[in-house]
C-alpha cells in the first residue's frame, strides 16, 4: 500500500482543478496567514480569490525544477494540505515546505508528509542536504522541524514585516548522514 508518496493515512498526488474550493478554504484560514507557502508575487496575508487560487494551482503544476503535490486524507479523500520539493539551483541542496490546513493539524499528518519528502529526496535524488525556510514568528513550524532532527543554520535577517516589526527567515537543514542515522543507517527506509 505504501508507495513513494503515500502512507497509511495520506496520499500525495498532483493538484487538479477540483481541489480549488478546498485549497482556497484553508489558504484563507486566518491561522495560516503569512505561512501559506504559495508562489512569490501573491499576497502573504490578504484573502485569495478563486482566480488567484486557480493560478496558483496552475503555477504549481508547471514547476520544472521540483514539484508541488496535494496532500489527500486517505479516509475521506479530502484535500488537507500541500507540499513542495524544490531544487531550483542545485539538486545537491533542495528545499522543502509542507502546509497542513488548520482543521487537520495535530493529527500526525505533517510528520508523515515530512518523512515521505525526505525519503524521496535522500533515496531517489542526489540531495546531500535538505533545507526548510520558516518565518521566525512561526514557532510551531520551527518546533516541528527541530523535533524531526533539523538543525538551525541561521537566518536571513529582515525578510518581511509582521505585526509591526521586521521579521527574519530561519533556515533549518538536515544532512543526508543525519537522516540516515535517524533511519538506523539504512537506505530505502
Amino acid at each position: 500500500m505504501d508507495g513513494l508518496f503515500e502512507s497509511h493515512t495520506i496520499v500525495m498526488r498532483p493538484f487538479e482543478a477540483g481541489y480549488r474550493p478546498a485549497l482556497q478554504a484553508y489558504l484563507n484560514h486566518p491561522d495560516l496567514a503569512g505561512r501559506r507557502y504559495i508562489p512569490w508575487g501573491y499576497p502573504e496575508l490578504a484573502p485569495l480569490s478563486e482566480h488567484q487560487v486557480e493560478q496558483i494551482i496552475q503555477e504549481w503544476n508547471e514547476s520544472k525544477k521540483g514539484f508541488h503535490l496535494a496532500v489527500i486524507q486517505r479516509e475521506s479523500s479530502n484535500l488537507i494540505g500541500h507540499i513542495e520539493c524544490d531544487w531550483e539551483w542545485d539538486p545537491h541542496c533542495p528545499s522543502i515546505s509542507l502546509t497542513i490546513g488548520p482543521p487537520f493539524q495535530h493529527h500526525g499528518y505533517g510528520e508523515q508528509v515530512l518523512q515521505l519528502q525526505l525519503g524521496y529526496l535522500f533515496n531517489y535524488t542526489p540531495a546531500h542536504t535538505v533545507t526548510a525556510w520558516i518565518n521566525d514568528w512561526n514557532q510551531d513550524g520551527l518546533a516541528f522541524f527541530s523535533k524531526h532532527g533539523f538543525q538551525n543554520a541561521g537566518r536571513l535577517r529582515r525578510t518581511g514585516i509582521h505585526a509591526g516589526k521586521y521579521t527574519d527567515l530561519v533556515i533549518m537543514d538536515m544532512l543526508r548522514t543525519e537522516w540516515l542515522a535517524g533511519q538506523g543507517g539504512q537506505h530505502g527506509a
Partner: protein
Amino acid sequence: MALEGKLVILREQKREDLQKLVDLRNDLETQAWSVSLPPDFTLEMYQKRYEKREFSFERQDGQFTILTKDTGEYAGLVSYTDLHPRFSATIGIIVDKKYWGGGVAYDAQEVLLKFLYEELGLRVVRLWTHSGNPRAVKLAQKSGFKVSLRMREAIWKNGQLLDNLNMDLLREEYYALHPELIDGLPEI
C-alpha cells in the same frame, strides 16, 4: 548623480564590455557562482542576453560595469538582483584578478551600497558566498556585512563540500558606518 567612488566609476553595461565578462565567467576562480558552470561561454551567448534586456519601470536588478578612474579600464561587474522595492536586494561582484587586492572591489561595493540605501531606500542588502571563498567574505566584512546564515555542506565546488553563506547589512548598520550620511527614512 554619477555612480562614482574614489577608485572606480560604475556605468551601464555596453556591448564592448561583453568579451571581458565572458573571460571572467570562463575562469572558474572569477566565475562567481555557487554552482560551477562549464567555462565555455561565448561572446555570442552574452550578446544575445544583452540584447534581450528591455526598458522597464519595474526593474528588479541593476548591472554595472566597473571602470577604473585612473585608466578607464574594465575591471569587472557589480550588480544587484532580487529587488524587493523599498526593502531588500542581493548584490554580487566579479573583479578581474588583475585588480584583486587593490581596493577596486571594495570601492565598487561601497558605491553600489550607497545607491541602494540612499536612492532605492532599502532596509537590508544581502549577498551569497561560500566557505571556500574567504576573499569574498573578507570583502563583505569590510563593508560591514555579517554572516547570518551558514547552510552546512550545501555547496560542492572545487572538489570540496562547502558551507553556503548568506551575509547581510541592515540599513541602520550601514548608516552607523557612514556618519557622513544622514538617514532620513523613518524606522519601522
